[in-house]
């Protein structure tokens, strides 16, 4: 039977940290470690989760955990896994938690290398759609239109001009044994994916949307709700890649209103009707592609 809210481990492995109220990333890390258990070795690059969890002498991980260089999440995971295996230790999980910048920008090369080698690691990207630790700068996973401190919304340029890089499919294109998307708005789905990934040999990748109230401009008690809504309005989707096949896990019966999702967040408040139309068109094109290429349950 799959793990769920009732059967989830009551032990806490990530607590006493300094994450902001309503932090989606810390929720993803906390839940994943509850699923993986105490024999996890967590590698976290320079970024929000390491900044809030590793301040000597207040060290907040109950399991083994180490900060890597910003670009080195995957390569350090490889070393951890190989080093333990070389000593005859096999009953552990080497798990990485990196943000969108640490994954899709500076850490992409090392991640690609690890997938290419099919190292036995689980890499979880908590995607809050900008460099939040340094104060909300654009990453390659910042969505079209979003206002960040390096893509300000003014008269001449209305926020970020480029669409979000598709990390899930980039990772899948390597022929990875398992990849999945998730959202902290659908925690059961995420828990089950972590549990499934933990049982698969080789490289696993889970990409979880993890809203940042500070960066997105929402109230601290809206994190889970907005993470649900991004899936329900079709701007994110829950899917898996396994055995060379894409599979959609959840098809909303009808998309909720995109404008309502966007206008709740101060990062999108400047968008014009035309911008919102652009976002809608891009969503619809993506879902056409999903219907053509993904197995639909």
């Amino acid at each position, binding site marked *: 039977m799959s793990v769920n809210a009732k059967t989830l481990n009551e032990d806490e492995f990530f607590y006493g940290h300094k994450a902001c109220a309503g932090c989606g990333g810390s929720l993803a890390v906390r839940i994943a470690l509850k699923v993986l258990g*105490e*024999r996890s*070795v967590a*590698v976290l690059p320079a970024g929000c989760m*390491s*900044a809030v*969890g*590793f*301040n*000597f*002498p207040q*060290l*907040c*991980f*109950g*399991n*083994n*955990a*180490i*900060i*890597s*260089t910003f*670009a*080195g999440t*995957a*390569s*350090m*995971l*490889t*070393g*951890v*896994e*190989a*080093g*333990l*295996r*070389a*000593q005859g*230790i096999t009953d*552990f999980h080497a798990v990485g938690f990196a943000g969108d910048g640490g994954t899709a920008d500076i850490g992409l*090369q*090392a991640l*690609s*290398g690890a997938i*290419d*080698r099919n190292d036995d690691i689980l890499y979880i990207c908590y995607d809050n759609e900008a460099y939040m630790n340094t104060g909300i700068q654009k990453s390659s996973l910042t969505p079209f239109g979003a206002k960040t401190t390096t893509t300000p919304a003014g008269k001449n340029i209305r926020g970020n001009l480029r669409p979000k890089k598709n990390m899930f499919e980039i990772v899948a294109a390597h022929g990875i044994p398992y990849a999945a998307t998730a959202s902290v708005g659908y925690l059961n789905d995420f828990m089950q994916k972590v549990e499934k990934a933990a049982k698969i040999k080789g490289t696993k990748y889970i990409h979880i949307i993890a809203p940042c109230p500070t960066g997105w401009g929402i109230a601290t008690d809206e994190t889970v709700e907005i993470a649900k809504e991004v899936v329900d309005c079709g701007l994110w989707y829950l899917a898996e890649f396994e055995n060379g096949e894409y599979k959609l896990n959840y098809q909303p019966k009808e998309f909720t209103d995109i404008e309502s999702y966007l206008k709740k967040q101060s990062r999108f408040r400047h968008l014009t009707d035309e911008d919102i139309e652009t976002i809608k068109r891009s969503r619809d094109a993506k879902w056409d592609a999903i219907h053509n290429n993904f197995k639909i349950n």
Partner: protein
Amino acid sequence: MAKMFLSGNEAFAYGIRLARPQVISAYPITPQTIVVEKLSEMVEDGSLKSEFIHVESEHSALSCAIGASSVGARAFTATSSQGLLYMAECLTYASGGRFPIVMMNANRSTALPWNIYGDQRDSLSQIDCGWIQAYAENAQEALDLALMSYYIAEHKAVSTPFMANLDGFVLTHTYEVVDVPTAEQADAFLPKFETENKLDLNNPRNLAFSAGPEHNTAFKYKEHIGLLNAKKAVDEAEEKFTEIFGRRYTGLTESYRTEDADYILITLGSIAGLVRETVDRLRKQGKKVGLLRIRYMRPFPNEEIAEAVKNAKAAAVLEKDISFGNEGTVYTNVNSALHKSNVNVPTSNYIGGLGGKNISADDIEKIFDELSEERAKVQFIGIGGDGK
């Protein structure tokens, strides 16, 4: 012990095999490639039981080695030049985390202009990154350093990563007859890697954390003490090495005919061989000259240098390096050593061998000749090209 005809790279690989690293992660770069090729062959033929990780860059090579070391595995990597610079972020990471990784660096010029040949600007530019830095003179010393490096790096009072430098091509690619110890001898010399500074599944830890202004200096101070302690660990390693293998080394420096020398040339790496021959030749002519070879740039042999130079009339530093806008890095360090010990001997600096430019016996003889004269403090040997 078997006699083999090996290049510097191959000799180092044989030394590493004897040290039995559990994880090797490396990325190829000329002129280091042969050491990782050789180790791959050893893993393939089963003579080396090691996880060989084909990383996609030097940054990942060292990051992976740090990961392996952080769980208590003995780790090895090798690089050169641009590769060393590309992984530079991980250098301070390994030393700050006190992970006793061993890395071979094939000394090579750094771009621009591109150049694959040997000089020491790559490693000397990283002198402050917290690693032990040793410079081998020949293939035998390279092999012996490979074995001793783990003893020193993993020493409880040291716990500091170790960079063993071999001059590109001149040493990495030159074949010599080398004594290769047996595995039994090597095992008698090198204990298994044991550390408490590791992630332990039975006793979970958080490592490589942040430390703010209140605690930061204490961590850095301990790191400094660890590197200073390497001096004693070198002596200890060499003493045990002599007991088992018979070969003798002389600590952070090697003095050659310096006791009564008026003029001393201080240098490092493979050029020392030619300097030694030149010293012998000039001695036959009645000139009182000597060689001081620096074997370790970190920890730096302050006392040894002052002791060797104090009775000389003048000393020169010959190095394949320039700290632009100032002088050679070795020269700066040597002058500091002399000044701290109140040794008031005039010194001068010769910058040579850049980008693989040959340094001849005549060049060395000229340095000794010029030492008795008043000269510019910093001089380049054989500028050539458009630089005249």
